[in-house]
């Protein structure tokens, strides 16, 4: 079970990354927990400077940009 968190202030880019992530894990939902954090204080507390950010088990893997469904699957190791 891996824990995915998407940090973003609610802008379009952040929503898109969230949607792409959900798409990317389709069929494997039980392997992941996906969480979305939009609270500004939590974002800043994480030391994030450009949103959106995607973390897997607390590790930042995507910062400041949208990633395609394919890229997210590659990162997660879903072929």
């Amino acid at each position, binding site marked *: 079970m891996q824990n995915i968190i998407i940090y*973003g*202030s*609610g*802008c379009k*880019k*952040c929503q898109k990354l969230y949607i792409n992530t959900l798409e990317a894990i389709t069929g494997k939902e039980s392997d992941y927990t996906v969480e979305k954090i939009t609270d*500004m*204080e939590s*974002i*800043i*507390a*994480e*030391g*994030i*400077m*450009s*949103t959106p950010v995607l973390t897997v088990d*607390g*590790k*930042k893997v995507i*910062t*400041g*940009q*949208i*990633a*395609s469904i394919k*890229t997210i699957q590659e990162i997660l190791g879903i072929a």
Partner: protein
Amino acid sequence: MILFTYFADFLVYTIFGLSADTKIAGSLHFFFEDISKIFVLLIILIYLISLLRAGLKPERIRNFLSGKKRGVSYFLASLFGAVTPFCSCSSIPLFMGFTQAGIPLGITMAFLITSPIVNEIALVLLGSLLGWKFMVLYAGVGIIAGVLGGLFIDLIKADRYLTPFAQNMLGNSSESTTHVNYSKKISLSERNTFALTELRTILKRVWIWVFAGVGIGALFHGFVPESFILNYLGAGKIWTVPAAVVVGIPLYSNATGIIPVAESLLQKGLPLGTTLAFMMSTVAASLPEFMMLKQVMKIKLLLIFFAMLLFFFTLTGWIFNFFTII
């Protein structure tokens, strides 16, 4: 560039069969020439520029700036504001990230002021529509605006006017920024992927602004008589510059949309300084940004900040108009 003129000639005069001296033909010609030119340039140049700057992240800029001498930092921050991609919805985390790293408020503001004004898309469009001289002028004024704005913010000790929220966050600087190694080398294929993603994202974001901007520019081009601008808004009329700046504030646009409008205004004889002042105030001072910054700045500081921008843009307009007259 002449290619796009031929394209518009062909479309408007041959396909549509319009006579060159009609107003509608003038408008349509402007529209098709600019639209085709802008999109071709955007696609090629965004891709190339994104290839080059893949991996340039605000975190790296921060690490770089936090070790620098204060004097040069204003200039460097302003310069980086011009070249670093960042979405306005990130301005608060970026603001906090900079200040938490001990970078003075004014230097952070220098970055944030220049960022919306000068960016690669704006420069490319300015260069191709209005010539490289205008492009250099615009970039120069934008960067100086950042430096002076930043200096001013520190001069009035604006830290006093941050919201309690921002001041609290300043106390506990975070260590969690070390998760990612920002200086790692990026492979060419990673750069390519980044550039393609950027291209798609930017085009998706700006196409509507381009259409709106070129549309307004085209209407202006075809239907507003030159004498109108000369008589009412000429360089000799001092009040037109502050008026252009004030009109620009509620008109929220990004740099991409405002450039075709500026092109059309300049062609109609609106003085250079007035046009510059109008462009800068439209892209730099906007309500959405105001709302965003309200989270970290008290109203008093926000008002000072905006007043300062307006003053600076007006002054710039006057200076350039003055030199145009003599």
